[in-house]
Every structure is written in structure tokens, then in C-alpha cells.
């Protein structure tokens, strides 16, 4: 990283020279990156490119949280994991891969499933949160947690041949509950294990999540606040649409919200969404 006096050591100048040459980014952008801490929730299809690109680009502290182990049917899209890590914790696999490409940053392993009982403690340590998870209750939970702790949330999702991306709770943008005050019916909660996902689709969305996290960390460019990117891989069409802002009467981020950290820790997200927090169902492929 940077020296305490803020100067750039010679090996860092060389490693990041292609960033330092960018007029819109430069030394100041690299310095802000090196001083930022980013938590990636989920080391799966989205989390793979997010963690690799954030590690490569020189984020100061990269946290990865995931409670699952690597499985062979993850490998078609989760490019951070090697076959040798099948059966081992995803967090360990992902953190090792990040250290192999950049030993100069700090990589922190949180080998847990993020839950209401541990989320506040973990998320509190970071400046920016990236939602790279795969299920609905966790998405509500992470958004609520980020509102309580006032952290920007770079949220991506991918399923089938489509992807979506936005930044919640930053620069006036809505939180997840502003957009979706009530959860969808259970039948609408499709998962990758139910419906499949083309491997490179979370790759595209994950790279874009890393980009947005970098933009938030460095204050370079216009982050996707109050906008959502919609990706349709079949037609190669990507549109960016305008979203509502944070709603004054939102039960979480609204001005009269009474939702506390204690409420959060007791909230039953699986019951709220009628949907489990893990995506481990074995797929039934009928050939």
C-alpha cells in the first residue's frame, strides 16, 4: 500500500502505472482505493469477478464473507475457484486466489453465512458493501443492514440469461425496501439451482459491480445511484433506467423509520420472504 506519509512506493507506481496515467483517476484515485475497505458478500458467480478485480486494482482491505464450500457445479461460472478447492470453504479459496494476484493488499476471510446475528458486526468494519449473494432474504437483510450502518450497497443479480445492477442507499438512491416494500410471491423466487444461469452472465454483472464499487470508493464518475442497469445477454442489449429516489415514508430509510439494530437482529428474513437463505438444493436435471 501507500507509505504513511502518503507517498507512493516505487513498486506501487510500477504495479498501478496504467491507473496513474489516467487523467480522471491518477494518483489521487489510487490513493483513495488503497485507503478503502470493501466487503464482498458471496464468493459465487458474482463474487468471483468482484473479488478478483477489486484485489487486482489495489483496494486497501478486501473482506469476503461466505459460509459455503466449493462444489463442482459452481465451477462453470465461479472462476475464482480451482478444482483443487472443491469441498473446501469458498472464502478460503477466494481469499487465496486474491492474495496470489495481489499480495500487497489486506484480504479478510469471514467464513460465515451472513445472518442478522453477525451482519452488523461484520459490515460495520467496511466502507462499501457489494451484494453478490444468490437469494432474496439475504438481499433484504443486507440492504437493511446497510441502511442502519449508512453504507453504500452495490447490488448485482443474475439469473438465466439476464442480469441487473444498481447502488442502493447512496447519494439519495433508494434502499431495497423503497423499491420492493413487499416480497414477491414464493413462486417468483427462482434461483440458479432451479432455473440455471449462463456462466458468463454473472461475470458481466460482477465486473460492473467491481467498477461501481471503485467509482464509489474513489468518487470518480457517476455511480449507478437512482439508476438500474438491465442486461439481456441473448440480445446483447443493456439499458440503464431511472429509478425513484429514497422514499420519505420507507420503513427502513425513510425519515420516520423506527427500525433499530435490535429490530434487525431479531428480524426473521426467511419468514418475511417465505424463502430460505441458502441455495443448496441439488438441481434435478432431466435428460
Amino acid at each position, binding site marked *: 500500500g501507500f507509505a504513511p506519509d502518503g507517498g507512493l512506493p516505487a513498486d506501487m507506481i510500477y504495479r498501478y502505472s496504467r491507473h496513474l496515467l489516467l487523467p480522471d483517476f491518477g494518483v489521487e484515485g489510487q490513493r483513495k482505493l488503497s485507503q478503502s475497505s470493501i466487503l464482498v458478500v458471496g464468493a*459465487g458467480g458474482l463474487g468471483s469477478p468482484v473479488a478478483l478485480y477489486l484485489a487486482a486494482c489495489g483496494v486497501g482491505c478486501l473482506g469476503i464473507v461466505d459460509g459455503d464450500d466449493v462444489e463442482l457445479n459452481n465451477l462453470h461460472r465461479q472462476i475464482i475457484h480451482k478444482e483443487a478447492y472443491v469441498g473446501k470453504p469458498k472464502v478460503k479459496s477466494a481469499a487465496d486466489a486474491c492474495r496470489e494476484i495481489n499480495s500487497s493488499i489486506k484480504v479478510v476471510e469471514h467464513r460465515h453465512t451472513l445472518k442478522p446475528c453477525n451482519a452488523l458486526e461484520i459490515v460495520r468494519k467496511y466502507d462499501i458493501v457489494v451484494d453478490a449473494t444468490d437469494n432474496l432474504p439475504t438481499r433484504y437483510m443486507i440492504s437493511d443492514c446497510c441502511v442502519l450502518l449508512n453504507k453504500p450497497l452495490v447490488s448485482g443479480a443474475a*439469473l438465466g440469461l439476464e442480469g441487473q445492477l444498481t447502488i442502493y442507499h447512496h447519494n439519495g438512491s433508494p434502499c431495497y425496501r423503497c423499491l420492493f416494500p413487499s416480497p414477491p410471491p414464493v413462486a*417468483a423466487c427462482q434461483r440458479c439451482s432451479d432455473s440455471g444461469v449462463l456462466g458468463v452472465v454473472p461475470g458481466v454483472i460482477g465486473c460492473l459491480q467491481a467498477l461501481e464499487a471503485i467509482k464509489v470508493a474513489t468518487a470518480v464518475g457517476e455511480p449507478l445511484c437512482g439508476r438500474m442497469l438491465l442486461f439481456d445477454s441473448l440480445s446483447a442489449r443493456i439499458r440503464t433506467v*431511472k429509478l425513484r429516489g429514497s422514499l420519505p415514508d420507507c420503513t427502513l430509510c425513510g425519515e420516520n423509520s423506527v427500525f433499530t439494530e435490535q429490530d434487525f437482529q431479531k428480524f426473521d428474513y426467511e419468514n418475511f420472504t417465505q424463502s430460505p437463505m441458502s441455495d443448496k438444493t441439488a438441481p434435478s436435471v432431466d435428460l
Partner: protein
Amino acid sequence: MHLTLEFGGGLELLLENSTKVHKVEVPLKDGEGKVPMKGLLSWVKANLIKERPEMFVKGDSVRPGVLVLINDCDWELCGGLDAELVEKDVVVFISTLHGG
């Protein structure tokens, strides 16, 4: 009135042949040059949705988890159910994704 309707995030599965883009002609009521979103939802439910309508509408509105965009803008910014559509508008209905 000529409108382009697009369905995504899995909502296209409720439509014939899972077609995502539909160029449609929505009838106007006498003497009016506009169609309110409320009217469009009824028309879509009656004319395009082929199965499981509860995956598209709930009560008067779309079901929770569906974003509605009028000309690439969240319908909440345009009046929601009371938003008035005009000739050649593009309306997108997209189900939010949770996978990764």
C-alpha cells in the same frame, strides 16, 4: 394507440412463446387520446398473459417484485397507476432477480 411492451426477468414466461417484446395496439376510450397505466394493466392481463396471472398482477397493480418502467423511467416517478401513456411509449415490466 401504438405501444411497445417489454417483459423481462422471467415475466416473459407468462406470455405466448415467451416473447419479450410486443408491439401492440391498445384501444382508446371514446374521446380520449391517452391510456392510463391502470387501463394498460387490465388490457395486458386480458390480452397477453397466457398463464398464472397472479405472477403478473395483484389487486389493481403489478405483483410485488415487478418494476415498471415508462420510457426507461420508474413508473413511480410518472404517477404509477395514474400515469398516462401516449402514442409510441415504451413500457417495460421486469421481475427483480435474486440469483448470483
